[in-house]
């Protein structure tokens, strides 16, 4: 149905993680945008118009939870997946606003299938 690849915005303060996801998701056929903090992510959501945001929570400056609020404030329907090393934010009511909560794992398939699941739910064609 779509003629262009799905655009993911991957937000993480760790360079190597960004690089990993960029490489992996490009292999999966996605277009990948990167941001290294919350502020930059909010900005890119507006300027680049990603289809889905993968958001780390613990970041210096504006953290993921705060960024989530701002992103949803600008684009109410944009799917957001929280991807974090912490399980504890699962109980934070702000994180309920996200479409999914994934605990970081070296097995990227977990995140990949979550992305696909959320995309299907949000009405994108199955990848």
């Amino acid at each position, binding site marked *: 149905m779509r003629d262009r690849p799905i655009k993911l915005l991957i937000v993480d303060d760790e360079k190597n993680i960004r690089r*990993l*996801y960029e490489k992996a998701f490009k292999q999966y056929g996605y277009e990948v945008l990167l941001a290294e903090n919350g502020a930059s992510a909010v900005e890119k959501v507006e300027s680049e118009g990603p289809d889905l945001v993968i958001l780390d929570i613990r970041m210096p400056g504006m953290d993921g939870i705060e960024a989530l609020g701002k992103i949803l404030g600008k684009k109410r329907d944009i799917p957001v997946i929280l991807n974090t*090393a912490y399980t504890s934010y699962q109980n934070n009511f702000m994180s309920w606003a996200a479409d999914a909560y994934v605990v*970081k794992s*070296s097995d990227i398939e977990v995140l990949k299938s979550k992305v696909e699941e959320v995309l299907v739910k949000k009405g994108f064609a199955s990848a």
Partner: protein
Amino acid sequence: MPESSAEMRDGMMVVNPSDFRIISVNPEMLQLLRIPSDKIVGRTWYELAKYQLALGEFDIFSFLPPDRLLEGELNISFQSETDSDVQVELVSYPMLDPQQRVREIVLLGRDVTQKKRFEADLSRRVNELATLNEFSKALQRTTDLNEVLYITLVGVTAQQGLQFNRAFLLLFSPQTQKLEGRAAIGPCDSHEAGRIWADLSEKAWTLGDILGAYDPARPLVDTAISAQIRAVELSLQNINSLLVRALTEKKSFNVIRGMAEEGLISDPDLADILGSDTFAVIPLYTQKREIGVLIVDNLINRRSITSTQVKLLEIFASHASSGIETSQLYRDLQEKIRALERSREKLQENQQKLLRAERLSTVGKMAATVAHEIRNPLVAIGGFARLLAKEMSGSHPMREDIEIVIAEVMRLEKIVENILQYSTAQEASLQPTDLHLVLARTLEALRLEIEERKVNVVREFCSDVPVISADSGQLTQVFYNLLMNSLQAMERGGTIDLVTQKTGENILIKVRDTGCGIPVEHLNKIFTPFFSTKQSGAGLGLAVVAQIVDAHRGSIEVSSEEGRGTEFSILLPASDYGA
């Protein structure tokens, strides 16, 4: 009479040694031997014995064979109507002629009643002192109240002691302000008395032996006569009671046929209880406090109790009093020490709990921080390794190596996961939870492992649905960890029994396996964080279990037999929302 006789001249009688004819006698001798007339002079000893010419109270002539007059010193005693017991010392002096033949026998007589009485008195006193000494020695050896009571009662009644037939002890209780019967000793009747005394005299026991023979397993308070006296309970308000007066006035009473010396009438029901209206009451007290009363009597041999005996009993009673006081103080002290020890133990326990909780939470926090910090690099390492592996063909020479990197990273991630679970286990969010559902879900999650290891899981669930107040996620973790543990202990298959039972306010859950078991020396360590015997794993599985169970106000126990299997029992409080 004995007083005056002490000042009397010696009596003298001269006897002919060939025919024992009385040659002469002085008036003192006549008086001494209670011979009413001096008509005995000129008669032979035999005549006098035969015809009983000397019709005195005491007939020395028939009593003493005359040839004994040659023996020298003679001691004779006789009963006289006027003096109760007369002791006369006779000394004979054979007088020799120049040919060394006995010419006449001079018999000198002296009243030694007083002297003998003094001697007897002295020996009695020595005995009493010895008895007292034994008694106080025995008392000093013990701090056990029952033993003190035993020693007192035995000392008063033993043949080797004060020889009373029976003795009763009542102790004053400061709490109730009452005199309470405590223990007694003595036969119930004369038949039993005979048996006991025969028994005791057979064994040549000294008083020390008897007093030392106390058997804590058979305190005197068990005897029938003790039960009798224990029925007595007398309020100090009862000021007309002789027992109360004895105690409060610190005064002994010698009660004869229901009357104390001063015309006081004794408590009538006391005679009923004792079965006797003649007895002595001795107060027991120390400088500081009232201890009780001692009652003694001679129900069996009916011997009257003398004032001297009462005096002796008082001395006895003062020893007994301090013995009883000491043992009571000792017991109070012991109780206080025990109470102190209990509170100290409690304190220590709490302190240890606190310390442990603090340490765990510190360890937990630190572990959580470290775990999180490690997670990101692990994601990078493992993630890139996977990307690399994807690009390598199955035959690539480094394919196997990269698979190892992937597997090891996964293992590290598992450990991190465990540590994080452990550190968050303290914060449970409790909701009414269906325990059976949690168990079913956990088993489902482990289905593959269970099948792989050919383990048979037997569910013995109670019929009604146990609703408990729990964090279902954490509870799942508990059973997951326990079942995983069991599965790992059964490399070659086996059975896991999963049991739930309602026990009053609690739900009991048992996870029982037929695995290799846990060595005894490890049993008390398995719930400690970072304790592990496995090659893999952080040693947190069971620590997490214990932590979560604790957060659910439950308890967990383990029993295990090496080579046979292990059983974990978890007790969780049933929910108020219960079915």
